[in-house]
């Protein structure tokens, strides 16, 4: 993978992101060649002879961008900001794509009528800690983004509780008091009797083409990169 004349790009290997990306490529008359079958993890693009495509999980793409093993990677803002330490200095967003859109939000039980803002959350978490010595439990998969946002909002009397699935049910099975989770339409949250706080939007995320600043770049690779970006934008 040290060939200076080949640009290495990571595409999501499955799910909605891959389907949306294929749609985009198809609309630009770009197709995969040498792909073989669904289990093949390397392919070439019909439009660019000097690009190798690697299919991998969206989270794995973040790791490979971080380590500079790939030049470009298509993944979500949320994953980059959650899993890459000091991401600003390691990747740059070259193109925001019109898919993979989701909001990372703070949601509380709908019945908490008195809690509409993060300042309310700060106050009730402090009341809870003072009266019970316990801290507000926040269920989330996004621990780093949650900590940064809560810190910015002055909320300190809480603990994050790792959640690997169905975060929406956490307040109702005793696992947590509130949640931080990704939502596209808010319907799942509503269906689970949860409400997004007025100022509870942590991140407006979408799929992006990220450029690794830690990968080896040559003038030739920069040129191929520019050509690829203009062909999909």
């Amino acid at each position, binding site marked *: 993978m040290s060939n200076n004349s080949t640009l290495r790009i990571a595409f999501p290997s499955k799910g909605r992101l891959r389907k949306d990306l294929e749609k985009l490529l198809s609309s630009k008359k770009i197709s995969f060649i040498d792909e073989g079958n669904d289990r093949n993890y390397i392919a070439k693009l019909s439009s660019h002879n000097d690009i190798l495509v690697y299919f991998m999980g969206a989270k794995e793409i973040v790791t490979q961008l971080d380590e500079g093993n790939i030049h470009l990677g298509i993944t979500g803002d949320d994953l980059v900001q959650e899993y890459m330490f000091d991401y600003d200095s390691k990747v740059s967003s070259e193109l925001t794509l019109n898919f993979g859109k989701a909001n990372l939000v703070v949601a509380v039980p*709908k019945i908490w009528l008195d809690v509409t803002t993060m300042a309310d959350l700060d106050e009730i978490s402090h009341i809870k800690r003072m009266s019970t010595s316990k801290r507000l439990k926040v269920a989330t998969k996004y621990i780093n983004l949650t900590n940064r946002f809560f810190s910015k909002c002055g909320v300190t009397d809480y603990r994050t509780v790792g959640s690997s699935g169905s975060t929406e049910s956490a307040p109702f099975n005793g696992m947590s008091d509130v949640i931080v989770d990704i939502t596209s339409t808010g319907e799942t949250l509503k269906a689970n009797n949860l409400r997004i706080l007025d100022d509870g939007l942590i991140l407006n995320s979408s799929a992006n083409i990220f450029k690794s600043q830690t990968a080896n770049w040559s003038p030739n690779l920069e040129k191929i990169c520019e050509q690829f970006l203009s062909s999909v934008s």
Partner: protein
Amino acid sequence: MPDNQSIQELNNKFKEFFLLEGFDYIEPPLVVSSDIYFETSGEQIRKDMFSVSSAQGIEMCLRPDLTIPTCQAYLQNNHKFDQAKLCYSGPIFRSGNVNNSIELNQSGVEILNTNTVKDSNYQEEIEIINLAIKTLNNINKVNFDINLGNVSIFIEFLNCLDLPQRWKDRLRRHFFRRDYFESLLKRIELGIGFNETRKEDVLKAHLGIKADISDSELKELLVNVNSIEFGERSIEDIINRLNIKSETIISSEKGVEIVRLIRSFLSIECELSLLPNAIDSFSKKESSKQFDTVFQMASNFSKKMKLGIGTRDINFKTDFGHSIEYYDGTMFEIEDKDNQNNKVVVGGRYDALLVNLGLDNKASAIGFAVNNNNI
């Protein structure tokens, strides 16, 4: 920055000095529970710590300071005591950023007292600041500035303001988080409280009902809406707080005036002996007698501290504070004028922390640490 050998020599030198001054040496563990740091400073301190989870899921960290482990180690073995004079000397660990992961060294003292609580004569404050000066003199450091603050004076000032108690509590609690404190001031300027229109909106949006519903009717409705468990808040708590928010309204006009007063108060900066004059001028400028108690407290503080510490100039700032939340009274730092004004000593009062660490009764606690890497 001194090399490793000089640091070790400094660590030993301070330790011997504190022992001669009558302090008991404590060697707290290098690895401590992370919980107390999250409890006192919140999750955001995580980025400054080397914290990992054990196989049992218990989160432990390399100690990021020495005050907490020293007090913890002492309290674990001494459930009942009158006074403890403790000292320590050794490394602490702060992660900083990837390129600047560092081991720092601190030497310091802590005076814990279960007989006396914070007194209005500031005897312990005087003792600890004089000891800090003597500690620096002992290594031939004489050219330094002392900066002093007292959060109690700010709290007294807040008590004089016509603000809802929960907002006073909020400003007090976030005094140390300056960015967020500033955002709270901006919110006050916009007006605060949950007015009837807002209450009506919330009830209508979330329950489809009008605001003129009685508490008992609302309770009944909420019980029906939510027949399953939803965390640890009771419906009564929710309704009570909804009502409290509706009762404590500050208009934007009044909010702007309150914030102007707060900013004006927090800009007071003077030599300690001039503090009463500064507060008096502030009160006169505001044509208000509502700050009489602040004047009295500040005058007493200034007089007693100057008497105890002597003729040396001390800079007092009303907004002086540290980034660590547990200081809850007098705070001070000493800057080395011969060395780029590096902070060489940081200290203060932290009575409430001892209760958080598990002490049953109220106590007085005060101390300071020398940053040996800055010497």
